[in-house]
């Protein structure tokens, strides 16, 4: 019988999802299902309420005063492509946009976002923060963060489904200078052939992923009920156990800060004598541990870490990860290390 799955790939997407997420998506499909903003009937209006509730929940979590400044996209990539398109037109030719992740997607290291924001302000530059890994995993207030644009993703630490993400447009950004990534129907200004010039419609052409947003809203409410800080504290404790457990295995090198208070609960490691791809395969097939291996779409980060081109093995924790998950993974890596040593590879 195959072993049960110990899912430690939450940096790619969180799983399992809290039960209310799927329930909200099913409820939307079964009971609402309509297109928001396109019609005036009760189901269309209810669909618009679903979208607005998700907008309010994201705004509430991130300290955004006006929910209309939350722009929904399909994912962080979409949002990241929208923002630079816009900003290029907003800055002078000799200026540049500062774009940075809030945390490394490889080893979880937290970046000095506030300090960079101060530099951006001092030089009158706009500052874009990619919060794909951090939004939901860290306490974030848009005002304290100091960023002008913040990208978020719904299906990681916010516990929502895939296909949800977006961009927060800060008060300092003039939306008249922003160019939408896509143009088309929004349901508003039907008399006009032109793209609407107001938020959020200007940047939300096409039928939205309302079923996904219903799930995202449920995920956000579940997070609020659980208490985000309590969840984060638990994740930090588990990450510290994981770092410590892996660090004690002969031949294993944990990459990054090795300090759970200075990183997200994302732990990457290498094992002397065994290729990360083989570690990933054996963790999955022999121990039921779902890990992510390779370069994590971040070759430069791996160059910095000294793990290019083979990459590393990544174990990432989520809101529903347990101490048992950590223990299973540490034992499994320990077994692989021991076998590799016996074969004369590690140590």
């Amino acid at each position, binding site marked *: 019988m195959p072993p049960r799955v110990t899912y430690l790939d939450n940096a790619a997407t969180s799983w399992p999802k809290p039960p209310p997420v799927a329930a909200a998506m099913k409820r939307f499909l079964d009971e609402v299902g309509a297109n928001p903003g396109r019609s005036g009937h009760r189901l269309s209006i209810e669909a618009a309420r679903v979208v607005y509730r998700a907008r309010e929940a994201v705004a509430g979590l991130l300290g955004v005063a006006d929910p*209309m400044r939350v722009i929904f996209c399909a994912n962080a990539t979409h949002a990241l492509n929208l923002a630079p398109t816009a900003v290029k037109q907003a800055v002078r030719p000799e200026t540049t946009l500062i774009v940075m992740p809030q945390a490394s997607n490889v080893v979880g290291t937290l970046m000095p976002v506030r300090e960079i924001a101060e530099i951006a302000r001092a030089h009158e530059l706009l500052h874009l923060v990619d919060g794909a890994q951090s939004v939901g995993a860290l306490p974030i207030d848009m005002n304290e963060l100091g960023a002008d644009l913040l990208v978020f993703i719904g299906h990681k630490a916010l516990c929502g489904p895939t296909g949800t993400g977006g961009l927060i447009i800060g008060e300092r950004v003039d939306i008249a200078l922003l160019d939408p990534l896509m143009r088309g129907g929004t349901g508003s200004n039907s008399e006009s052939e032109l793209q609407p010039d*107001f938020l959020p419609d200007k940047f939300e052409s096409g039928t939205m992923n309302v079923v996904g947003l219903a799930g995202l809203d449920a995920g956000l409410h579940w997070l609020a009920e659980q208490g985000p800080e309590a969840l984060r504290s638990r994740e930090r404790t588990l990450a510290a156990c994981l770092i410590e457990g892996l660090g004690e295995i002969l031949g294993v090198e944990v990459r990054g800060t090795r300090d759970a208070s200075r990183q997200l609960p994302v732990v990457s490691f290498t094992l002397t004598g065994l290729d990360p791809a083989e570690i990933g395969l054996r963790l999955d097939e022999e121990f039921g541990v779902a890990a992510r291996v390779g370069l994590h779409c971040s070759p430069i980060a791996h160059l910095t870490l000294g793990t290019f081109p083979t990459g590393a093995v990544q174990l990432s924790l989520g809101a529903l990860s347990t101490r048992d998950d950590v223990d299973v993974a540490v034992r499994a890596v320990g077994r692989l290390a021991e076998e590799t040593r016996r074969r004369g590879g590690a140590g």
Partner: protein
Amino acid sequence: MSRSAPSYRLYMVPSASHAIKGESVLIRVGIPCALIPVPRTISTQCGVSLRVELDLGDRAGEALAGADVQISGTHDL
């Protein structure tokens, strides 16, 4: 034929998002409202508008303005 006296005030908004935001604001301050399709006699837009009782119209307008809800027009019907 004389038209009957108005009994509702209609707040026109740019899109459904603004209508829902307006509804949320009015519910919070305890003003009953309904979201209805924009009457064709007023506009050819295909969106929805916010309808409140006429005697609550001014109070609703203040609440909507106070919450930065974009209003593109008002009509007493």
